[in-house]
């Protein structure tokens, strides 16, 4: 019995190790892909022509900005600039509205935090409401039939189960 338990735990451990190894291989397989970085960064920037489109989605014929900006992005990725440096260089050149989403610094942090705070506050509120509801006395109209208990209640439950099978 003990050896069977031992062999089962050993099998589990090896399975976990194998899973971790496969996951690590798969994770690192996709790392360092330059076109993926270009695609990612290009979707974090807006075209500066005023079309309000993501840089890689701007399709304005003869747009005076998108081709130039894409070329600058390709150059930054080829140079190996990190994401922050690349995005900062665009902000310096085209202004803060070139970023497709608020940064996570200063007052802009509020933009990111507020939705989660709202969700947490909402959850808290739902919890409070649920607690208040569970402890509140019922508003029961006087002429409602008396509640059923015991055998009668079981009979009704059985009938409901039979008829609905739910």
């Amino acid at each position, binding site marked *: 019995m003990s050896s069977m338990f031992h062999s089962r735990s050993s099998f589990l451990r090896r399975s976990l190790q194998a899973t971790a190894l496969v996951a690590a291989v798969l994770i690192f397989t996709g790392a360092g892909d330059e076109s993926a970085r270009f695609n990612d960064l290009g979707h974090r920037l807006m075209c500066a022509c005023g079309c*309000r489109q993501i840089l890689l989605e701007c399709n304005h014929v003869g747009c005076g900005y998108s081709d130039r900006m894409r070329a600058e992005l390709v150059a930054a990725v080829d140079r190996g600039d990190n994401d922050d440096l690349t995005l900062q260089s665009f902000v310096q050149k085209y202004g803060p509205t070139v970023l497709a989403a608020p940064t996570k610094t200063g007052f802009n942090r509020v933009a990111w935090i507020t939705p989660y705070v709202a*969700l947490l506050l909402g959850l808290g509120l739902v919890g409070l409401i649920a607690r208040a509801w569970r402890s509140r006395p019922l508003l029961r*109209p006087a002429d409602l039939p008396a509640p059923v208990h015991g055998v009668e209640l079981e009979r009704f439950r059985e009938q409901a189960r039979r008829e609905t099978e739910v």
Partner: protein
Amino acid sequence: MSQIGSFTLLLALALSAYCFLAGLLALVREGPGSARLSETARRAGIATFGVVLLAALVLVIAAFQNDFSIAYIFHHSNRDLPAPYKFATLWSGQEGSLLFWSLLLSAYGLVLRLRYKTDTRLFAYASVIIAAVQVFFLLLLNFAAHPFAVMQGSLPTDGNGLNPLLQYPEMVIHPPMLYLGYVGFTVPFAFALAALIMRYPGEKWIHITRRWTMVTWGFLTCGIFLGAHWAYSVLGWGGYWGWDPVENASLMPWLTGTAFLHSVMMQEKRGMLKTWNMWLIFSTFMLSIFGTFLTRSGVVSSVHAFAQSSIGDWFVAFLALIFATCVLFYVNNRSHLRSEHKLESLVSRESSFLFNNLLFVVACFTVLWGTLFPVLSEWVQGNKVTVGPPFFNRVNIPVALLLLLLTAVGPLLAWRRTSVESLKRNFLWPAIGALAIGALLVALGMRPWNDSSYFYSLMTIMLSILVALTVISEFVRGGRVIARHSGQNLLASMGQLAHRNTRRYGGYIVHFGVIVIMIGFAGAAFNKDKEQEMGFGDRMTIGAYTLVCQSYTQDDNPNYSSEWAVINVWKGGKQIDTLYPERRFYKASQQTSTMPRVRSTAKEDLYLVYEGLNQDTGRPIIKAHLNPLVMWIWVGVWIMIAGTLLALAPNAVPVRVPAPARMHAEPVGAGD
């Protein structure tokens, strides 16, 4: 023309003002003459529809007659504009669209006033509230955004034309659908406020308004997705939703309206969430007005927005008035909204509705927050920031996933409490099915750990499968019971099941449509695109497709000139299609527009855009997008519409719901 139009608008204002004032007086001053006064108010409301319709017809006729003495026609039409778009001129500009708003509101008011015998007093209150909203829009039309304003100086020979982006068949139906949704929420709002003002006993007003709300919600759903399809088919960036402020404006009332459609069941079945429902429908209406304000005030910049104008102040004042009215009546009558039951267990249908509503409202708040944050940022920091798709996707996708989970779990929880055995029985196999599909997708090469978008995509598909399996199991379980009793086959039994309780099973079909749409959204994580200059015989490969440029040419007609390419599509060594991506130059407005061409299959869309000619080589630049699963979105919308129609249909056998002690029992659609 202009004088007839101006007169009809003034007459409509007088009629709706009379409907409001006389109706109000009849309700406040109960006396022998009040019934007759109320009847005259009702008839004035009905007449308002006729007069506003006449005003709208005058504007459309002016467009067809090329009457450029009317400034609106000059700015939004031209002689060579095709007839369907001349008709669409009615809603293509600021003033015309406000007239259209007013027309739809008067049409809704007409139906309501014709059906007044359902409950004379409740309908009289609702009619007065609708008349008040109508007065606001007619005041705007008469004094701030006059659609019949005349041109100054010499008469122009031709107009500026319709915005090229709007010259697409869907634009003839997308705005009316959207407006039917926006405007329609006025009716449930009016009933809710009326019920609050008169301390309406019981939940009958909810039964009356349920159908209105569902119809309105259905229109808004159609409007939103028609807009998405239009963006996909016309704008040429390969996507269907860009989180533009105007798109967000339509999404917000849809989110709260959807929350209302769910939570209203709590009130019907259990007499709970009365205050919440009241405020939910108030908020939905206010968000509809707010959306109209957003698109017209210039507060936020948007590619869809109408010209910046001063009518924003009117909307702010109107919104403040609505809010103050709602607060006033709520404070005075809130004791009427006390819950009749208590929550017995956290694992129950009631609590699932609570969480469902929380998530819908948080999603709505997030969209509102992101839309207005640039304004707030400018106010606080002195500079505007962009809040675009990366923000909205990151914040809203987790909420959407939680909502999907609740879509799977909620409908199968019992009212009051659910046992652990029941949970196991209902969810074990669907959960195993969802996990198996997830494992299969990973085995097939989906790598959720490589990118957050892949992770969200996988989660979306797994949760969608979970919802689909729970919906199917509900149909099969109920169908089997009927089959056993009736001897019919399972499919016929499931049909009968849906017909017996249309609201419940219509709702399931809507949920099924939602998950089909979500699977379509999940495909966006795997979009690919490629851009290339393509001369005669040049090839481009994207995914499994090889594109060969057969030729490129030019064309001309009175409305626009165009350049287009003929692209042969090859797959597996065989030519399977020919696509003609096009770029147009509209003469009247002097604007260009792309007309992408799409080869759509259940697996993926091949989407080609003619980006223009390379000035140096004279050869066209073609951009190809490969967008997986997009067709699922449009199919899902049809399923949602089918589910909504089923939910609106009457049950085969009316189910008698036990009514609260103080009410008379009456036949209503059985709920979930």
